[in-house]
C-alpha cells in the first residue's frame, strides 16, 4: 500500500503537520489522532497545519480540521492553517467551513511568525 501520509514534525515549540495532496478518509481521521498524540507528547505553543499540497476538500475533511482546532485549543495550543489554495478556500466557503478560533496564514513561514506574535501577546 502506497498511501501518502500525514507528517507531524516538531520544530522548536511548534508542531508542523503536513497533509498530503488528496487525503482519504483514513488519512483524515489519522490527522486528529496523530495531532492530539503529538500535542500530549511535546510541550508546544500550538500547531501549523500545512494544507499547501491539498487540492480537494470535502465536508468530512473540513469538519475534522475544525474539530481538531478546537481540541488542540482545549489542550492549550493554538492552531494555524497555512497555505490553503484558492480553489480549496472557495470549496471551504461553499461547504460552510467555520474556523472558529483557528487562525490562517498564507504560508508555513507566515504561520510561524503569527504563532510567535500571538504567544508574546502582541495581538490581543
Amino acid at each position, binding site marked *: 500500500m502506497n498511501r501518502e501520509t500525514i507528517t507531524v514534525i516538531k520544530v522548536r515549540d511548534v508542531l508542523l503537520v503536513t497533509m498530503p495532496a488528496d487525503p482519504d478518509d483514513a488519512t483524515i481521521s489519522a490527522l486528529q489522532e496523530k495531532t492530539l498524540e503529538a500535542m500530549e507528547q511535546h510541550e508546544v505553543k500550538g500547531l501549523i497545519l500545512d494544507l499547501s499540497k491539498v487540492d480537494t476538500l470535502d465536508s468530512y475533511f473540513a469538519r475534522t480540521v475544525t474539530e481538531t482546532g478546537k481540541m488542540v485549543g482545549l489542550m492549550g495550543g493554538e492552531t494555524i*492553517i497555512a497555505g490553503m*489554495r*484558492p480553489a480549496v*478556500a*472557495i470549496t471551504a*466557503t461553499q461547504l460552510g467551513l467555520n474556523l472558529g478560533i483557528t487562525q490562517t496564514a498564507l504560508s508555513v513561514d507566515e*504561520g510561524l511568525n503569527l504563532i510567535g506574535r500571538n504567544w508574546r501577546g502582541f495581538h490581543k
Partner: protein
Amino acid sequence: MSEATKGSRSRAAKGTSSKETSSEMLRLLVDNLKDYAITMLDPKGTVTSWSPAAERLKGYRSNEIIGKHFSTFYTPEDSASGKTERELEIAAREGRFEDEGWRIRKDGSKFWANVIITALRDESGKVIGFGKVTRDLSERKQAEEQIRQQSREILEMATVPVVQVWEGILLVPLIGVLDSERSQQLMERLLERITETGSPVALVDITGVPAIDTKTAQHLVETVKAVRFVGADVVLTGVRPAIAQTLVHLGIDLSTVTTRSSLSAGLRVAFAMMDLHVGAAQAVAH
C-alpha cells in the same frame, strides 16, 4: 482567358445573338471574380461547373472536382450529420440558403466561409440545379476573434481590478453593480492574486458600488471568509452613509468584517495589520 475574351469580342462584333453574348459575359464575370467562388451544382449536389476563383479558394482544379459531391468541402462532422442535404433542401424549398462556417480546402486546411446556395429552376418550376457562391471570410473571422479576446481581457480587468498598493497590501476598487457573476469573479481573482503576491491584506473598496442588497452583502461576506481561509484578511472600505443605512435596515451582519468609511482609513488599518507605521518624517534641518 484572354482567348475567351477575344473570342467573345469577335463574336459580339459579328453580331451573334445577344443571348449568347450575355451568357458569355456572365461566364467571364464568374471566372474573373476574385473573392466570390461561384460553382454550379446539379439537383443532387454534384459539382457541375467550377471557376478559377473557386480553384484559388479551395485548391481543386476543375477536372478534380467536377462530378464530385459538394460535401467534399465540408468538415467530416458536417457531412456526416447530413448538413449538405439539409442545405439543398432549404434552398430548394425557400429558393435560397445562407450559412457561415468552417469549410475544408483540398490540402485539408480550414477556412471560414460565407456560403449562399440559390436554387435554379426551369420554366416549369422544377429545380434543375443550384448556384453556390462561397466567400472566404477567414480574415474577418480572425479579426473578430481577436477583438472578442481583447474585449474579454479588458472586461475582466475592469470587472475586478486588483492592484498592489503596498508590499503585502492589495486594493480592489469596485465600480458598478456587484451581481452574482461579478462577485464570483471577485472571489476567484482576489484569492488568486493574494496567493500569487503573498499579500496578507486586501482592501475591497465599494465607494463606486451604487447599492448593496442582501445578496451582494452575502457574496462579500463569503469572499471575506474565503480570503481568511487562504490566510489573509479583508478590509472593506467605502461604506458610505447610505450603504451603512441599507446594511443595518436589511439586518445584514457584517460584524465579522473590518469596515471603514474611507479608503484612507482602511489603508491605515491595513498598515496596522502589517505592523507598519506611518508618520511625518522629521525635518532634515531639525
